[in-house]
């Protein structure tokens, strides 16, 4: 694994994610028009915003899935748009990405979905070690019994949790969660929120969490930002935003 990039190498004060003046448009329709956002080491940042406001697009930029029209994105102090494919992959290995629709590989069982990135990146791991790591990861999302199921046999919420396990198995330093609790019942979504918090506390993972689930936001967030019309319209702690005087922002908390 790439040792050259670690969470520490960005320095204690330097943000692990630094977005400056990010602009993106699709078919000449601006989606993001000047985003400035920093995530500090070990911080959980929650992103709120109406459906279609460009939240998913924003985190896709961080891993080079969407090319920005303008602006600078630095992850671990590396400018994402100026990296070679190999260098970009080194950064990607340190960044976990949970897709909104889980994006499980539907030709593989749940177990293979988790084992696949391990086998690909860590050729030296023995099958027994891989099995153990996969078991532990599934256990952390409470789905150990699903190991031999195919993705098509899972419910939406189960897929989401398998997707989360698959992302966490590579032990990232930054996690990007795209609606981690959507489609889950209250009890499970509380568990997932607790898991996100545990990842931060125990492993010192910095996260960006996109969510519409205010309970999840309240539990996990150190700081929240609200996306509106392509810019960050409000920023603050949970209580600050809830008790603030912007009526539009307050609609999220109703």
């Amino acid at each position, binding site marked *: 694994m790439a040792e050259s990039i670690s969470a520490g190498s960005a320095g204690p004060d330097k943000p692990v994610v630094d977005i400056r003046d990010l602009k993106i448009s699709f078919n000449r329709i601006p989606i993001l028009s000047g985003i400035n956002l920093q995530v500090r080491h070990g911080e959980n940042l929650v992103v709120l915003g109406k459906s279609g406001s460009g939240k998913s697009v924003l985190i896709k930029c961080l891993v080079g*899935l969407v090319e920005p029209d303008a602006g600078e994105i630095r992850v671990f102090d590396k400018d994402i748009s100026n990296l070679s494919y190999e260098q970009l*992959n080194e950064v990607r*290995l340190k960044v976990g990405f949970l897709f909104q629709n889980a994006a499980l590989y539907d030709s593989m069982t749940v177990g293979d979905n988790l084992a696949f990135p391990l086998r*690909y990146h860590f050729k030296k791991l023995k099958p027994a070690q891989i099995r153990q790591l996969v078991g532990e990861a599934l256990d952390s999302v409470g789905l150990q019994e699903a190991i031999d199921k195919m993705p098509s046999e899972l419910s939406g919420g189960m897929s989401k949790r398998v997707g989360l396990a698959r992302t966490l198995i590579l032990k990232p330093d930054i996690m990007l969660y795209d609606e981690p609790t959507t489609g889950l019942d209250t009890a499970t979504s509380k568990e997932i929120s607790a898991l996100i918090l545990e990842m931060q506390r125990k492993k010192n993972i910095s996260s960006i969490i996109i969510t519409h689930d205010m309970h999840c936001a309240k539990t996990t967030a150190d700081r929240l930002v609200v996306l509106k019309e392509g810019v960050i319209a409000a920023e603050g702690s949970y209580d600050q935003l809830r008790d603030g005087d912007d009526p539009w922002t307050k609609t999220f908390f109703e």
Partner: protein
Amino acid sequence: MSAPGGAGTETINEMYKNMQTAADTESLRELLKKKFAPTGDSIAFAARFFRELVKPPFPGREFLHQCYLIGYKSCPLISLTGFIMGLVLTIQSRPSLAQFGAESMLPGMVATSLVREIGPVITALICAGNIGSRMGAELGSMRVTEQIDAMEVSAINPYKFLVVSRVLATTLMIPLLSVYTNAVGMIGSWAAMNIHTNIGFTRYFSAAMGHLEFLDIVPALVKTFLFGFAIGIIGCFKGFYVRGGTESVGRAANAAVVTASLAVFVLDMLAVQITDLI
């Protein structure tokens, strides 16, 4: 109002004209780009195959799995088609050869046409339909459900894992399958011979084989590698760059079959021309 307006209108007219030409060249450029970009993209896509092939790691597991799928899934269809082609070819050629009293030429003639043309082309066409569409649809649905993006973000090279393995598998398996088609075709032909005469399989087979020459076998074999490569690359290319929803997946699968079949015919024509020169 009219005096200064005269000069004004002229400049405005000119400006408008200039804008018009600018817009025309712009749209022409965009039109050309739209027309020819896919060709350029597909060439770049194919060139990338060779670059990624030599760079480790090699997706061995996936490659073997694809070989198995291609060989195993196409076998029944190819067996049936090959057998029927051999049979029909023999029954149809028999009367004309009998007219010249050249019935003894029949095994050799059938073998030559099977090995040189019918075996490779039939195999490639069946695979273009069968494998090309499967790859187009599979990679296309992986693209629209973000599975390819999921590979990207976990630092797995999706081109290497999905495309290199598949293209290499078709490139190696289609020659094998077409040798198999030839063999099954010979069995069909032997069966047709036995409607009229009683001839042992060994005797029939050696009569047929004795007729084949180097130039019958090697160019035909080389051709099948090209067919295999084309089918794999086209199927993967159409699927890999699907944009939009599920309906574009169907379109990609369809386009893969049409383009791959066309490519088989074009490559066949080129190969025949080149062989003719040798």
